[in-house]
């Protein structure tokens, strides 16, 4: 047995993504999902806010890390479903999908 730095890396993204999804996504559901349609929050103010580079960076973390959280969980579910014998292809598909989703998020955020 040897220390696995790869696993530590992927788990770090998983943990960070889980933390963000648990703590911040509910805030955005309230602020953007309910607050904006109800008129409690100004859409124009939100648009001004996301134009700031720090806000874009925040949005990138908010989208990307939960993608990797999701990928890590799905990877382990696939192992449990019997794909343990092919760890590399499963990991490439799962984390590759998270990476592609992150790139898509980058393009959306840059267009804001």
């Amino acid at each position, binding site marked *: *047995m040897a220390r*696995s730095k790869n*696993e*530590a890396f992927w788990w770090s993204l998983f943990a960070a993504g889980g933390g963000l999804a648990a703590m911040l996504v509910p805030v955005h559901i309230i602020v953007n999902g309910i607050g904006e349609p109800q008129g409690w929050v100004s859409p124009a103010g939100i648009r001004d806010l996301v134009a700031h580079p720090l806000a874009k960076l925040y949005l990138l973390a908010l989208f990307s890390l939960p993608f990797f959280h999701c990928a890590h969980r799905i990877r382990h579910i696939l192992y*449990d479903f019997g794909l343990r014998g092919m760890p590399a292809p499963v990991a490439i598909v799962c984390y590759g999908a998270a990476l592609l989703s992150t790139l898509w998020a980058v393009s959306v955020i840059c267009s804001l």
Partner: protein
Amino acid sequence: MAERTITLEVFRYRPDSEQEPTFQSYTVPYREDWVVLDALNYLKDETDGSLSFRWSCRMGVCGSCGMMVNGTPRLSCSAFLKEYYPGPVRVEPLANFPVERDLIVGIDDFMNKLKSVKPWIVRDKEQPVSEGEYRQSPAQLATFKQYSMCINCMLCYAACPVYGLQPDFVGPAAIALAHRYNLDSRDQGQSLRKEVVFSHEAVWECTFVGECSVVCPKDVDPAGAIQQEKALGALDLVKSVLMPWGSR
């Protein structure tokens, strides 16, 4: 009034005379203060002396009498018959372990895993006796005391679906004990343990199902210990990137 009874369906496997395991039903007197182990000992003494099972202390301390009782890993010395009345009560060997005979499972794999995490105090250099004992404050003791309550009963392994699917998994009790010694202020062995604890077969295999902590008869919370070791593993990665000279 007729004496109340309860039926035990006991897993039987005698490899010297049987190819396949079977279940055998026994009727035993029902008493409210009896536990499953009392019923098994009654059977052993009065009905069927060939029934084999491990037990020792009868008080939830030795960790010998772990069995599956109605499908749940339990210490048979603390599983009261009244929890299962009117029965029947199905008694099987601990899940996820090879059966040697009847309710006795092979524990070699667990013992090897336990040893691999060095569950003892490791010192770089022992201080001479003349310098006195290694002193520890109540606060330092409190950081690891919970994890030192493990009695190696292996119920957590029987409950763990990851261990069931992946026998290489180091498992809950061994990692919790590694965590116990890593937290101990007298210990200096964390760098030795991390090759095992931070390996693919140890903390990273755990998917935090949490059943280990549910079934633990001593409230050790191995699942929590594993999560804390994962965080330490992530910190170890950061340190090895930022300070490669300091990472062993």
